[in-house]
């Protein structure tokens, strides 16, 4: 049992940290709603100026950038999720020769940062694959890194499933394929959704890869679009803030919708059902 004093202290600490986390966000949202002409940083309140969003949207061409981002993210997240589920199932529940070594190779993908491979990857894409400045040049590498994480994630999940459940299905006459999709996957919903949210976030926010691979403005994703917009608009902070909110909003929406599952998924490894 925690005493009342301990509980209050807990709330104070949590409150302070929430404040630290939320203050910059609140600052940006606040700035985005300021009067663009009479703006003083974190300053005056003279009504809410939602028109900043439409101005930013039109000026920065966010429609195109967001469309690109949605396309890239949807392809990366859905393809990597399917591949990760399949690979995680194999590594988690099947016994086969070389599985340990292969798994370490997957882990390598998780451990090497994009910065370390970006230069050779660029030449590879440009010279050998002739994919530079195409969506593929940002989709394929991101699928590769996502599958590394996703496989690790799903393998951990499948390992936590009681073995007897899989064995019961086998004895009942279910194939491996059927066991995966009909017995295990319905139970894996929190784990799969959490993986989806994480992959979505990482893919949506990916900056470096797009910066290096894409030169055509019409193919840029939203974070890059924001950066281009910033380059053109150094003086107008309110528009910049509005643009940032627009770019960040989809991630927030996805998180809010899935947060219940997200938290359950994050806990599923730690707390036994």
């Amino acid at each position, binding site marked *: 049992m925690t005493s009342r004093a301990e509980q209050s202290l807990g709330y104070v600490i949590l409150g302070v940290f929430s404040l630290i986390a939320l203050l910059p966000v609140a600052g940006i949202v606040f700035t985005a709603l300021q009067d663009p002409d009479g703006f003083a940083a974190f300053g005056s309140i003279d009504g809410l100026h939602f028109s900043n969003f439409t101005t930013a949207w039109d000026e920065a061409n966010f429609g195109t950038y967001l469309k690109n981002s949605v396309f890239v993210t949807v392809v990366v997240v859905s393809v990597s999720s399917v591949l990760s589920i399949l690979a995680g199932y194999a590594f988690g529940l099947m016994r086969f020769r070389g599985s340990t070594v292969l798994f370490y190779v997957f882990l390598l993908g998780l451990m090497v940062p994009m910065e370390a491979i970006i230069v050779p990857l660029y030449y590879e894409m440009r010279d050998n694959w002739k994919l530079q400045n195409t969506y593929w040049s940002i989709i394929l590498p991101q699928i590769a890194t996502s599958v590394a994480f996703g496989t690790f994630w799903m393998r951990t999940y499948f390992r936590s499933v009681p073995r*007897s459940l899989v*064995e*019961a*299905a086998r*004895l009942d*006459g279910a194939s491996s394929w059927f066991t995966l999709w009909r*017995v295990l996957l319905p*139970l894996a919903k929190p784990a799969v959704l959490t993986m989806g949210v994480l992959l979505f976030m990482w893919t949506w926010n990916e900056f470096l890869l797009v910066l290096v691979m894409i030169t055509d403005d019409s193919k840029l994703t939203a974070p890059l679009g924001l950066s281009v917009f910033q380059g053109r608009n150094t003086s107008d902070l309110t528009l910049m803030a509005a643009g940032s909110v627009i770019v960040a909003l989809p991630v927030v929406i996805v998180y809010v919708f899935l947060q219940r599952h997200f938290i359950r998924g994050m806990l599923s490894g730690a707390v036994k059902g």
Partner: protein
Amino acid sequence: MASVRFDAVGKRFGSVEAVRELSLEIADGEFMVLVGPSGSGKTTALRMLAGLEAISAGSIFIGDKRVNDVAPRERDIAMVFQDYALYPQMSVFDNLAFGLRRRKVASDEIKRRVEEAARVLDMSELLARKPGQLSGGQAQRVALGRALVREPQVFLMDEPLSNLDAKLRTQTRGEIRRLQQEVETTTVYVTHDQVEAMTMGDRIAVMNDGRLEQVGTPEELYERPANRFVAGFIGSPSMSFFTGPEVGLTLPRNGAVVGVRPEHVRPWREGLIGPLKGRVAFVEALGRETFVGVDVGEARLVVFEEGRAVRDVGDEIEFGLVESGLRYFSSESGAAL
């Protein structure tokens, strides 16, 4: 229905030999209990029969068919798991129907069989529920039902009662036995609980350290244990062991280890072997009877007294042995003499 035969079956996990040269015949319709302490290889033997573990040596037959290389789903067996292994997202009905649907049984036949099993197990009102909404006992019945509807050649049960409380366990024990007698399906039942083994099995196979120690009816194992291990494992409280010189007796087989069950160690009266004197080490008063642990020299014997005996730890007690109850074992090999 079918008989089951283990023919010199072995299983290795790396350098560990989990099962060694297991040869065992289980007759058609028989209820065979595999019993033994943890790590004795009983569950491994069952899992090899199910096809969940590969066989390292020897052969397993179901009926006349050698099943070493037959996939689990083609062995026509049904298994009840210790943790029940019910599919959490499916209703009880779907859990029961799962195996039948996989085997392309017609849907009205599935309905008939599931309802029949639900009736037999008295769980018709549970069919719409999910496993998460069931109590331990109910989940247990569903697990049994899932095996039952399949109408398999052999039932395999892996410690199915170990997650139930004591009262429910006794009740379910009777229920499983009754069901098995009704459907007459060959059953292999694994447990570490010798009470379950004694009350349920037509025959019992006692395993220890990967080896089969003895196979026989409960009575045979109790009355004529093949060696010290079986003698000590079967019966509760277990058999006491001592040598003649330890307790100051001259017994017919000199040098042998003597085993005696509590019911053959009684407070002193004429006609018993003795008297022996010892000090009370513990008292287990169960109401109808009392077991008194007595230290005599190096040996500890358990004395059986009717009713509630008033004894205190440290008391001196005089007792004797019933001659017909003495069993002799080789002091080297432990084999019965």
